[in-house]
């Protein structure tokens, strides 16, 4: 198709243009890691995993495995004794002294086929001495708990993380604002509760897979590349962070390690950072010259990659006689699992946002990440926020109820939130000023959409119907200085290649990048494509595709790159016409002059330049636009108070309301409708925002009913899609209403901020509040299983 055919969308920002990646995804040609072809030289890997939650490793013997025909290598901690981590370098690739979770890899086997690798892995003999294990984060935080990391003091750590060697506490974030002690007596209503969330898993439909190729070192004396050239193909949200962490851990020069990441089949945080990918590299080193493929089974995906941390939240909140929030005291104990290299930053994020989206003058917050003998807790959509909002948003409902009777004015849960929610310019808990957002407008939109003041009769005598509301905030949680960069290049026909290191996980990052580039350049959307796959050798740097930061951060970089290219073009044409670049513009792929009304198509000139008169020489040449973005204004926070000039780049806020029915005979919940609204700053692609809102509402709803289960020795009981159910097409509500408001973000492209993670943060508490509205029963612990609700109805279970 040439660019003159088909649709032609000028000024695409704000328009619901189709996704750039959708055609290849419906015809089956979109390539994921497992689809890549490596030929007959490909080897297969299998990991040997610990059956114990906590044990000393006494011996690892791989001799029998190596005797199996077709086995090429076996690797243990003796061969590669190093640790890896992002914020806290605590995870050995293969441990040599102890295992800390059921499923921890202690060795890996490489063979010519998957079957041989599996058979050989079973022949690796490991002698263990079982140690006492601890699974609950509150117990693990006690001084007498079994210690998981006696060497914690030696671990390298980021300067904004505060581990406590000699304990299991890998991070303790303290927030101190005002004076809670003097505030409690002034409270007219106080609600206190302990709230628990189990581990849940991301359940991307694509399991993790990685292929690594370690090419032999060059001959001695040839100079460069003493470590060999390493290529790693991964399904990753973080190709550049993987390069950095694996290079550091394994002593590979950054330039010798190339990470290539094609489309990602769902990430949700589970494909951020490094999880299983490092094993592919460690095993490939043992069989240089052969690509080695490591692919997680669904069971390994559940317990051998990462999970969302479990949380125990002990929270107390009070308000005065007018219903104004006065004080909050909270302790969050995140169950970080065996290794907390990423989880520490979740506890930190939960600490500096510990109030949820509320303006509370007196706050004492302590957020802990605690080592436990459970799967590794790491990033998952919401990054600590769904966990803390579960308790906060139920307490707000209870406070509203308590105070309502004492007030002359109506104060229902929606009104209570309008009054107390964080507003533009508030000095929030860390001391920073709240950037412009409109949470009240979001509350108004969802209460209207759910017809909040009206209560319908249930559809059957044995059913009860209720409505619930919950609100949220979330900031991108990341180091202070994560950068993005972009390049914009042209083909001869003036079609555009946008090069970014951000990843397409399904959220629409490539589509938004194409829209931003087209708008800033002045070319039709259909002329732009985004170069894929992401390849650290050729793609411009991107920190990670996480934190809902891509539309904002990468968007800024792409906009800057396109503006840079545009300026180069205008200067060449202005010189050609003898005009001022300021009188020129690019519209629909043509340079135009508002002064002389001349026109110059971009075709060819963006590559070849323009000839001088009579072909007496040329001007211009290939246009390459470059753009970067990095926030420069975020400060570290005081370790004792959590106070600082600017804790985060910004917050995205939103509200959700749900209507549901509970079957009182079975305890089953049917969610009838979910209404959501978020302040997106600027909707670059309105329909893509709706797809996030709808998918996120269902993800959030699903999360209210999910939970990984373990036996008393830490062995997983339900690591499969039958026993761990995620919502299917028959379960989802009939109606999901999505909406947004647009309060521009000061430093977002056209004012845009991210919304990908926020869309599931408050769904579980909104459902719990609706269940309480229907039944008058509160459930403090997730999941909201039918059994639990039935027992609650029968009065058997003490729910509070």
């Amino acid at each position: 198709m040439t660019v003159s055919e088909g649709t032609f969308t000028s000024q695409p920002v704000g328009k619901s243009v189709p996704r750039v990646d959708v055609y290849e995804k419906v015809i089956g040609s979109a390539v994921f890691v497992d689809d890549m072809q490596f030929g007959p030289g490909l080897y297969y890997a299998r990991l040997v995993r610990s059956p114990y939650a906590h044990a000393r490793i006494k011996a690892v013997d791989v001799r029998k495995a190596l005797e199996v025909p077709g086995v090429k290598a076996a690797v243990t901690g003796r061969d590669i004794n190093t640790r890896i981590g992002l914020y806290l370098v605590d995870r050995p690739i293969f441990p040599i002294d102890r295992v800390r979770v059921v499923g921890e890899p202690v060795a890996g086997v490489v063979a010519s086929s998957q079957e041989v690798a599996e058979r050989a892995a079973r022949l690796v003999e490991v002698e263990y001495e079982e140690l006492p294990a601890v699974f609950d984060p509150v117990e693990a935080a006690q001084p007498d708990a079994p210690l998981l990391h006696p060497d914690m003091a030696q671990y390298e750590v980021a300067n904004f993380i505060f581990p406590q060697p000699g304990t299991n506490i890998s991070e303790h974030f303290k927030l101190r604002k005002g004076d809670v002690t003097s505030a409690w007596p002034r409270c007219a209503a106080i609600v206190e509760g302990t709230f628990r969330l189990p581990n849940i898993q991301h359940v991307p439909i694509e399991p993790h897979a990685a292929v690594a190729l370690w090419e032999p070192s060059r001959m001695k004396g040839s100079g460069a590349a003493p470590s060999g050239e390493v290529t790693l193909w991964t399904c990753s949200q973080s190709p550049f962070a993987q390069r950095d962490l694996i290079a550091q851990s394994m002593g590979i020069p950054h330039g010798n390690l190339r990470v290539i990441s094609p489309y990602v089949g769902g990430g949700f945080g589970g494909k951020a950072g490094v999880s299983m990918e490092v094993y592919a590299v460690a095993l490939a080193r043992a069989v240089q010259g052969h690509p080695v493929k490591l692919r997680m089974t669904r069971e390994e995906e559940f317990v051998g990659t990462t999970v969302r941390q479990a949380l125990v939240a002990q929270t107390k909140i009070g308000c005065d006689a007018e219903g104004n929030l006065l004080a909050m005291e909270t302790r969050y104990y995140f169950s970080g699992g065996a290794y907390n290299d990423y989880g520490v930053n979740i506890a930190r994020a939960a600490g500096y946002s510990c109030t949820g989206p509320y303006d509370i003058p007196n706050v004492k917050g302590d957020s802990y990440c605690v080592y436990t003998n459970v799967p590794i807790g790491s990033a998952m959509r919401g990054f600590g926020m769904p966990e803390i909002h579960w308790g906060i948003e139920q307490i707000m409902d209870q406070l509203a109820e308590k105070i309502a009777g004492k007030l002359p004015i109506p104060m229902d849960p929606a009104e209570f939130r309008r009054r107390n929610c964080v507003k533009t310019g508030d000095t929030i808990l860390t001391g920073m000023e709240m950037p412009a957002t409109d949470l009240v407008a979001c509350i108004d939109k969802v209460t209207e959409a759910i017809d909040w003041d009206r209560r319908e009769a249930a559809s059957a005598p044995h059913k009860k119907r209720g409505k619930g509301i919950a609100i949220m905030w979330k900031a991108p949680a990341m180091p202070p200085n994560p950068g993005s960069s972009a390049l914009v290049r042209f083909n001869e026909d003036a079609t555009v290649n946008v090069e970014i290191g951000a990843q397409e996980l399904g959220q629409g990052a490539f589509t938004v990048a194409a829209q931003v580039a087209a708008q800033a350049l002045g070319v039709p959307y259909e002329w732009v494509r985004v170069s894929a796959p992401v390849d650290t050798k050729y793609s411009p740097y991107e920190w990670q595709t996480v934190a809902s930061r891509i539309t904002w951060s990468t968007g800024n970089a792409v906009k800057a790159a396109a503006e840079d290219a545009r300026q180069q073009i205008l200067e060449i044409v202005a010189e050609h016409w003898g005009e001022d670049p300021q009188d020129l513009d690019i519209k629909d792929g043509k340079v135009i002059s508002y002064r002389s009304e001349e026109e110059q198509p971009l075709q060819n000139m963006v590559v070849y330049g323009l000839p001088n008169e009579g072909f007496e020489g040329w001007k211009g040449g290939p246009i390459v636009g470059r753009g970067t973005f990095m926030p420069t204004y975020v400060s570290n926070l005081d370790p004792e108070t959590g106070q600082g000039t600017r804790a985060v780049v910004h917050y995205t806020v939103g509200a959700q309301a749900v209507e549901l029915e509970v079957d009182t005979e079975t305890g089953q919940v049917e969610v009838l409708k979910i209404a959501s609204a978020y302040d997106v700053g600027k909707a670059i692609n309105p329909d893509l925002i709706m797809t996030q809102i709808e998918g996120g509402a269902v993800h959030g709803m699903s999360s209210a009913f999910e939970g990984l289960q373990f036996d008393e020795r830490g062995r997983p009981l339900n690591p499969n899609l039958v026993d761990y159910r995620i919502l299917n097409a028959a379960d989802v509500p009939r109606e999901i209403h999505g909406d947004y408001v647009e309060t521009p973000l000061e430093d977002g492209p056209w004012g845009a901020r991210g919304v990908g993670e926020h869309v599931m943060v408050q769904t579980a508490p909104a459902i719990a509040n609706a269940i309480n509205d229907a039944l008058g029963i509160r459930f403090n612990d997730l999941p909201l299983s039918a059994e639990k609700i039935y027992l609650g109805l029968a009065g058997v279970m003490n729910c509070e």
Partner: protein
Amino acid sequence: MAHHTISVTVNGGKEVLDVPSDMTLLEMLREKLALTGTKNGCEAGECGACTVLVDREPVNSCMMLAVEANGREITTVEGLAQDGQLHALQQAFIDHNAVQCGFCTPGMLISAHALLERNPHPAEEEIRAALVGNLCRCTGYLRIIEAVQTAAIQVAAEHGTLSASKEGDVSLPFTAEGEA
């Protein structure tokens, strides 16, 4: 491992293949024929990402041995588009933005295709029931259900079996504002 020579029709083309006894149909498609549109999500018949048609019936190809496909007709996502023309389902998935990461999409399309083949006028409940075996973590399913409704009308119109009232029932939430 014993090997067997089998003869199968895949997306209309005849193939004669040498397959080991324990090779699944999924492995045969992906590894022998490089038809990687069919995805491996669990290898346990639980997620539906590997759904293909075997003699027009939807099957989890990870749960069927390649040797069992001997003499049968297989349709994968690569066989849906005909003569360079997208299948109505594929176009509807595009029009409704019913695709995000795309990993479940091939299996979804095949299950929906099987449904429309046996029931050209499915009610919403029937669409939901036909897709329960295909898990999706991104979309929340509603747009997929709407896309199947739209495609059903399209397919019925092509076969001249559409009643006028039915067409009016379906709304298109995806408005192509961008088209000029």
